[in-house]
């Protein structure tokens, strides 16, 4: 299609950047991936996202779009003729997808992150218990949304799959770090199978970071206190 000027400011390790990249891949949009250096913020990032100074930022024909879920919706709406629809077509299904995507960011992710930032065993165990609880809620949400199909969005990956699926690399890193499995066949059977399918999707596979590389990066981002 037309070579629209599309740039994405981000990083290979960021969950939120990954959402934008999957959406771009789904729509077969070529883009320039401008990777930020860890520990500093580029001029372009600060100029394009003066409010939050965070990645990802999608720059389309020089116009910046910020916030990962907003970017994904933008990609879906700006490129309607290429690739599958990312959001469901019926307003009620769209509302449900948006509801759960917000839950993932506002509730589930916060507790997952708490595992990595926890000080001491007690805090860590409390965070783990909270993630268990919230994952159970997402397991039920998957069953409700998928209605027997392989993805939250039905036959193909969509908005909600992308919202949660982008976390899978980091989720695995957290499992290894905490020595605790969340996505297993007994506790979250549907999500466990969904996770495999999601990671195998052609729009996801080339972008999902390698777990060992991510774990190494996690140690930099969340250094353990010196004994």
């Amino acid at each position, binding site marked *: 299609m037309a070579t629209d000027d599309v740039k994405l400011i981000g990083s290979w390790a960021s969950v939120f950047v990954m959402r934008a990249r999957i959406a771009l891949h789904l729509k077969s949009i070529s883009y320039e991936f401008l990777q930020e250096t860890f520990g500093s913020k580029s001029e372009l990032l600060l100029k394009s996202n003066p409010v939050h100074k965070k990645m990802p930022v999608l720059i389309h024909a020089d116009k910046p779009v910020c916030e990962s879920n907003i970017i994904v919706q933008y990609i879906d709406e700006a490129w309607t003729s290429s690739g599958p629809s990312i959001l469901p077509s019926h*307003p009620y299904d769209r*509302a449900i997808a*948006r509801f759960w995507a917000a839950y993932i960011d506002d509730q589930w992710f916060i507790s997952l992150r708490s595992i990595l930032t926890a000080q001491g065993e007690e805090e860590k165990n409390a965070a783990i218990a909270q993630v268990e609880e919230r994952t159970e809620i997402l397991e039920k949400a998957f069953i409700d949304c998928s209605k027997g199909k392989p993805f939250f969005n039905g036959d193909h990956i969509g908005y909600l799959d992308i919202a949660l699926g982008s976390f899978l690399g980091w989720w695995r890193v957290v499992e290894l770090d905490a020595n605790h499995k969340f996505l297993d066949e007994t506790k979250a059977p549907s999500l466990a199978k969904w996770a495999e399918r999601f990671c195998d999707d052609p729009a996801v596979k080339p972008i999902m970071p390698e777990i060992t590389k991510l774990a190494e990066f996690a140690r930099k981002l969340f250094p353990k206190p010196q004994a």
Partner: protein
Amino acid sequence: MAERSESEEVKLLGMWASPFSRRIEIALTLKGVSYEFSEEDITNKSSLLLQLNPVYKMIPVLVHNGKPISESLVILEYIDETWRDNPILPQDPYEKAMARFWAKFVDEQIYVTAMKVVGKIGEERDAVVEATRDLLMFLEKELVGKDFFGGRSLGFVDIVATLVAFWLMRTEEIVGVKVVPVDKFPEIHRWVKNLLGNDVIKKCIPPEDEHLQYIRARMEKLNVKSA
């Protein structure tokens, strides 16, 4: 047989003094949608509310033909997509993305920061007021040359930002801090006047005297010092 219009069986579980509930009423009224309002006692939540929003157990909840939707921003988008008269969100994908961005900014940044003013005194309070003002400056700049955030008429961001106009700014009187002084925020003040010139807004915001009384009573309960 002609199909009944989509506007049958619309129920809103809400609370008269909540900005999140009132914004839904504004949207429904703008679109001419008749709805049944069910006032919730948030200190004694109904079993219906708990059943319809088991995840957050909060108002507002919109119920359309028996199907519940929670989270005010999600509800607003659902309303806009279901009842097409008087659109709330812009058509253009970029403008839409910007509207979503600013709405999220109001709820996640301004609201969260401004709430911290309550219950603080002295230097701590000054710091929060300063932080709130820094955030409000972004909205101030957005309004330059516009009657509303939506342009010539009310839109998504205006509806969401009524939180600033009729909650944050009303609380100033009681908390005794001019968080939004007119000399620093002339555009915001002009915008509030424009809002007050709109019949739907006038009809849907909580009546001022009762509202102030309610806020005072709540603050007294929380043992907050007022001016």
